[in-house]
Structures are given as C-alpha cells and as structure tokens.
C-alpha cells in the first residue's frame, strides 16, 4: 500500500489510487473539469495539477495532473502551493476567455479568485474535456462520438461527420457537459467575468421579489444571496440595499 504525503499529511492508500482520490480522502479539494468518478481519468483540462517532489529529494518539483498520477511510495504532493494557485488562476483566466457562457467555469473562476480579463472572449461551445466521449463510450456503451482533427481544428464529432446510427439520443453527453450548463444572464451579462464572488448582488433580486433561479447555487448566491445558510436574509433589505447603489 503506497504511503505518500499530501500537504504535509501522511496517508496510505490502496495501490492504483490516484493522487486526486487520495487528496479527496483527506478532505482536500482539488478543482477538476474533465474528471468524473464514473469515467476513466483523462488529464486534459490540467486544472487538477499539483506540485510533486520526487522521493529522492533533489528539490526539483514537477506539475502533474492529480487525476492521472498514481499514488506511489514516498511521493510528496502540494495541492495549494503558490505555484499551483498561480497555475489554476491563469488556466481559469484562459477558460473564462474561451467559454464565458459556462456556469461551471464561471463558478470555478469565482471560487479561485480569478479576476483578470486580459484575453479576448471566444465563446467556444466546447473545451474538449472529453467527458461526453468517455460517457458515451464507457457508460452508455455506444461510442457514437469521438474526437476528430488535430490542434485548433480538433473537435468532437461522429465518424466522418455523418449521422450516427450508434447514437441512441440518450442525452448523456449533454448531461455530463460542463459547458452546456449556462451561466445566468445577470446584472453583468455583457462582461466576460461573472464575478459573483464580488457582486453579492444576486441577479434575480434585482428583477423579482423571490429567487427565480433553477440553477444550482453559485458562489454569489451562497455567500450573499437568498441561499445563504447562516443568516436569514430579508428580501426587502436586499432590494433596498441594491437600490441605494
């Protein structure tokens, strides 16, 4: 059973466990985009990179994706070092610029304190995380979609871009897609960055008396909005506070 150190904490796990799972076992959260517990790890989004020092201790570290990294004896892993945090923020800046309409990505950006908008937005509708491909292949046992092309031209498609008889139209690909879940078009709908963490001004409250949102709560709602768990918020108070702004 390999024994490794994560953030200074020693943990022994079963052979074959990934560092991502070992960290979760300890309660340490690592962000992911292309990972799902029910699918094989892919290592494409790079958001789960952690800083790993080799056991022989020559001081050099590597940044490796935790989801594909097998836990080995003597591994020394840092999930929240300065380097890792910087990498996550820069990656998220790139992700928001590529897919600003994705709620999942906006929530991650809010959560990890990413506030820069230096890149021109692209509004791609795919980040090529491969979850749909693996879902179709491994869970739905259809294999109707896959990747085609290389580099900038790589995209998810059906064989020869033709209608596939293998596709049962189950919708699992849409269900698992992190971009398909669209952000709410709130107060700052025009801007690339939702910045829910800064707003605390829940969108719905500006137009409605009650929460009119069917989305999973995002950071803003959890911190300052009607779904705050610690303090009961009076709707009228929130509305008048907003009117003062």
């Amino acid at each position, binding site marked *: 059973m390999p024994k490794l150190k994560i953030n200074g904490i020693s943990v022994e796990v079963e052979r074959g466990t990934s560092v991502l799972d070992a960290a979760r076992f300890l309660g340490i959260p690592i962000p992911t985009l292309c990972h799902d517990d029910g699918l094989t790890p892919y290592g*494409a989004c*790079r958001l789960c990179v952690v800083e790993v020092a080799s056991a022989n201790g020559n001081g050099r570290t590597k*940044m490796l994706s935790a989801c594909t990294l*097998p836990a080995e004896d003597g591994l020394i892993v840092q999930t929240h070092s300065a380097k890792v945090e910087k990498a996550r923020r820069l990656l998220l800046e*790139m992700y928001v610029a590529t897919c600003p309409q994705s709620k999942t990505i906006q929530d991650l950006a809010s959560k990890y304190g990413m506030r820069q908008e230096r*890149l021109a937005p692209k509004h791609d509708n795919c980040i*090529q995380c491969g979850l749909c491909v693996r879902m179709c292949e491994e869970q739905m046992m259809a294999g109707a979609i896959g990747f085609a092309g*290389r580099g900038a031209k*790589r995209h998810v498609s059906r064989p020869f871009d033709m209608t596939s008889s293998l596709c049962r139209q189950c919708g699992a690909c849409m269900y698992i897609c992190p971009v398909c879940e669209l952000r709410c078009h709130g107060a700052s709908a025009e801007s690339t960055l939702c910045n829910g963490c800064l707003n605390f001004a829940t969108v719905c409250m500006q137009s409605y008396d009650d929460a009119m949102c069917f989305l999973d709560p995002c950071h803003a709602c959890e911190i300052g909005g009607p779904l705050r768990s610690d303090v009961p918020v009076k709707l009228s108070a929130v509305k008048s506070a907003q009117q003062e702004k």
Partner: protein
Amino acid sequence: MPKLESIRDLEQFRDVCLEGRDSNKPCLTVCAGSGCTASGAHDVIAGLNKNLEKLGLADKIDVKSTGCHGFCEKGPVMIVWPDGIFYNRVTSRDAAAIVASATNGRKPVEKLLYQDPQTGERVLHENDVPFYARQQRILFGNNGRIDPRQIEDYLRVGGYKAQAKVLGNKTPGEDIVDEIKKSGLRGRGGAGFPTGVKWAALKSNPATPKYIICNADEGDPGAFMDRSLLEGNPHSIIEGMIIGAYALDATTGYVYVRAEYPLAVEHLRVALRQAEEFGLLGQNILGSGFSFRIKVVQGAGAFVCGEETALIASIEGRVGEPTPRPPFPVQRGLWGKPTIINNVKTWASVPQIINRGADWYAAIGTERSKGTMVFSLVGKINNTGLVEVPMGITLREMIYIIGGGIPKGKELKAVQIGGPSGGCIPASLIDLPIDYEELTKAGSMMGSGGMVVMDETTCMVDVARYFMEFLEEESCGKCFPCREGTQRLREILERICAGKGKEEDLEVLTDLAWVMKETSLCGLGQTAANPVLTTLRYFKDEYLAHIREHRCPAKVCKELIVYSIEPTVCDGCHACVAVCATDAILGEKKKSHQIDSGKCIKCGACLEVCQPKAVLVS
C-alpha cells in the same frame, strides 16, 4: 549466399569482403544523400558511368554512391579513392575530367577542389577542409565510405563487430547496460536523459515481453541528421538496436520513421532485409540462440508523434496523442509492456561504445555532456550542412570556423538551437560552450540538434510568431493550455507584428508562456513557449519597438515597412519593373521610378535586382 551461422562465419565472410576489394583500385564515391540528389548527384553518377563505358574502363574504375557527407552547401560532393581527393559542386559535365584524373598520373581536377574563401587556396583532402577539420565524425564518418544498400561495405568498415563481440562473449545484459551508463551517453532525441539509467530502469522491470523503439520521426523543421544517418548508414542503427535488445531481453524492435523520408525508409528496408538474409537479424542470430526482429512503422505527418507516448499510440493504431507520464514507457509502454525508446543517433552510438569502450566515449565532450553531437547548421550561414562535433565546442567556432561565417558580411544576431522547442541564443553569448547544461542555463535547449543561424535581417518577433504558427498547427489539441495557449500566443504575436500590439501584451505573453510550460501534458506544450520566452529575454527592445514605435528594426514585418525608390539614386534602368509581380512600379526608362505602395506586397524582388541600391525599406 547461405546464412552466417556463427561468429566465425561472420569473420570469415568479413575477410572475404575485405579481400574482394583491392584498396588500390580507383573508386569514385559520389554522395547521393537527399541533398546532393536534389543538386543532381544522380546525373553525376550517370555521367561517370557513361564515360567509363565509353572508355572501356568500367571494370577498372568503380563508381559508388554513398550517403550524406554533410557538406550540403557544396553539393554534389564526391571523393576519388585511393588518394582521397575531395571534389565539390560537381556536375555531370565534369565526368570526363574526373575519370581522366583518376587514371592519367592521378592529377586532380583543380576547379573542383574546395577553395578556401579567405586564402583562395585549393584543398585536396576532405579532412583539411575547414568545415571538416574541427569535426569528430564518430557517427557520420562512414557515410562517405559505404554504399548503404550493400551490407558488404558496412562489414568492410568493421560493422557488426560489436554485435559479434557481445553475442560471442555472452556478455551479461547488466554489463552492457553498465558500459552504456559509464560512457555517459545521453539521449540524442532532445531531452538528454542518461541512456544507461533508462536502460537500467527497464531491466529492473520484470514484465514481458519487452520492446525497443527507434524514434526516427525527426519533426523539427530544418533538422535532417537522423534522415542522413538512416539513408547513409542504416546498419549502424540496426546493430545498435540488436545490441540493445540483447542487453534488455527485448524480442521485437520498431523503427518509427516519418513518411516524409522515403529514401530513408527504402534504405532501411533494404538493410533490414540484407541483415536478415545474412543471419545477423531474426531467429537465432549468428547461432547464439538470441532472436530479435525489427519492424518498420511509418508516421503520418504529425510533429507530435515524435513525443514518445504519442509515438507509442501511433504504433498501436490509436490517434497520436500523448498520455500523461508517469507511468513512463519503461514501466508501461507499447501494448502496456516495458519499452525503451531512443533516438536514431543514440542507437547508432551504441556499437561505437561497445567497440571502443565507455572510457573512450567519456573522454570526448564536457563533464556532464559526453560524446559528440550532430547539428544541422542552416540559415544565414555560409557552410550549410550537417556537422558532428564534440560537446563543449563554442558557438563561435561552430559559426565562424566550421560554418564559414555569415554570408554577405552581415552581422550575427542569434542562433536558434533545438528547433521549435528550443530557444534563441543571442550573439552576445557567442562564446558559450555547447552542452546540455549550458544551453538550458541560457534558456534554450539542445533538442535534436537543429541550429538555425540568424543575422541582422531577421526580425526576432517574426521568428517567435513563425514558431508559434508551427506549434499551433502541430499541437495535438488534447490538453487545454497547449491548444489554447499556442493559439493565443500566435494571435498576440501577429498583432504585434502588424503594429497593433499593446504594452500589456508582453505581460500576457509571459503569463501564458509560464502556464503552458508548467501545466501542459507533454513536452510539446511544455516547451512551446520557449521561442517566445527567449526572444523576450534577449530581444525585448525589438518587441518594444514594434509596440511603441510601430517599427520593425530588422525591416521584415510587412505591415510596418514601406518600399520606396530614392529618386536621386534611381537611374531608370527598369530592372525592378521586370521583376515586380504586382506591377507596382511605375516609371519611364531612364527616368526615376516610383513604387505604388497600394500594390506593393513587399516581396523584396526589386531590392535584390536594383544595382544603384535605390530601393529603400523603411
């Protein structure tokens, strides 16, 4: 020809080959590597043969075609034996004179001898030519002596001796691995990982079967060392692989060669067939009980397939996309089994080390970079070609002595080493000794040996943009930072080259480069930002000129330059009008001309033909 079934058979056959060739018999060896072939080497060979037929000398004088000699700038090249007279820039019209020189009194053809550009002196022998004098050609030395399609030639120069030695002595695999470790040989594919350490890691893995792979993908633009070695001396690689397989208990080997190298593939297949026919490869090699076979797999046009895990995927028939490491190929490689992947030059070094000893090899080079390195010296340099030098030689020697300096008296600006993954070394570091550590310290990388020389007419921002364009195209697209990062970097660099850059762009470039380097899945993404990072480090002033002044100091970036004609200098000779592809030049003969900048595409054709130098670029 019956199979050689023992070491003794091999040595007896080698003696037969050696005796079968009278070393006093004149032999005209013509370089027929891809470069010289493009310059007309086959016409030369045909011309020589025709001449010999005509004179009835076909059985008195041999004509042999060999692999690349390295001095591609002066091709086609040839050597007349037994005197070893070196001729360059040979054409088929010289055939009669060459044949005559090989017979009557053996007086060399003066005008075909290499002429030193400084002294005007003519040089007789290859090793006296300054291009060759400083080289140490332990891998390429035999290219000029053997016909790659004839195994007998390889045997004549001592081929398969190393293999016979280890098989005959039944040298334990661990001892061979130790010898490679002791030699200090480092992988010549680019990363420079100690080969012996890699081999030892495989040996400690009990899983079977084991595979070895020769990475002959050579994707770096402008690199052709591996190609020339495969074309010119394929047996050296085969022998190296057999020794490696024997040491590592591998049963099957693969040579993954890019499809864009048809001649290399052909010569490799011929060599493999001959080796099998003679019992040097295949079942029960030379009666030793050791069996090993080699298969050839061709690439399909992807630079990323030079990356080892993508290469493995390609051999397996999957899409050539890398997979995260660990696990490394020595743990789980081809078909999930332990696999060693080494570069062409690394495999070719193995027989040399076994024959001449690890100590001999370790005596060449620097403390941590042993042996020789093969560079393709290209770009703004007088002597373009392949160069094999001991590690530790300075850039100054490479460029000014071996390379013969920069053409047209221009100033050296930078040298790009290591292909698109490498970086630019500025002229100020000209005395840098070339080895793995020194290059990494300077921000560059040895890579597989591409060396592109740049002069004052090269725009460093444009260079960064060019490499980014290449890498964007070649990125496999699987991981986000590389796929998006190469696109974004290219977009920003294009804007800067077009004069639309902003000061903030430099910070964005640096940040994007950093995140690509740290988080990309494979080596392509991790090193993709190197051209940008090194040009920013050493040539920031050029970036600032583009951004702040909308000026390209090297006068390359088309949106920032204007071609015009100085009216006082122009003599109306009309030469420029003749070459202008877009009819952008107006003027009557004998009167000064003008360029219509609306039509001008800044191709530079007029600049080249203008005698009075009236064309200005500003």
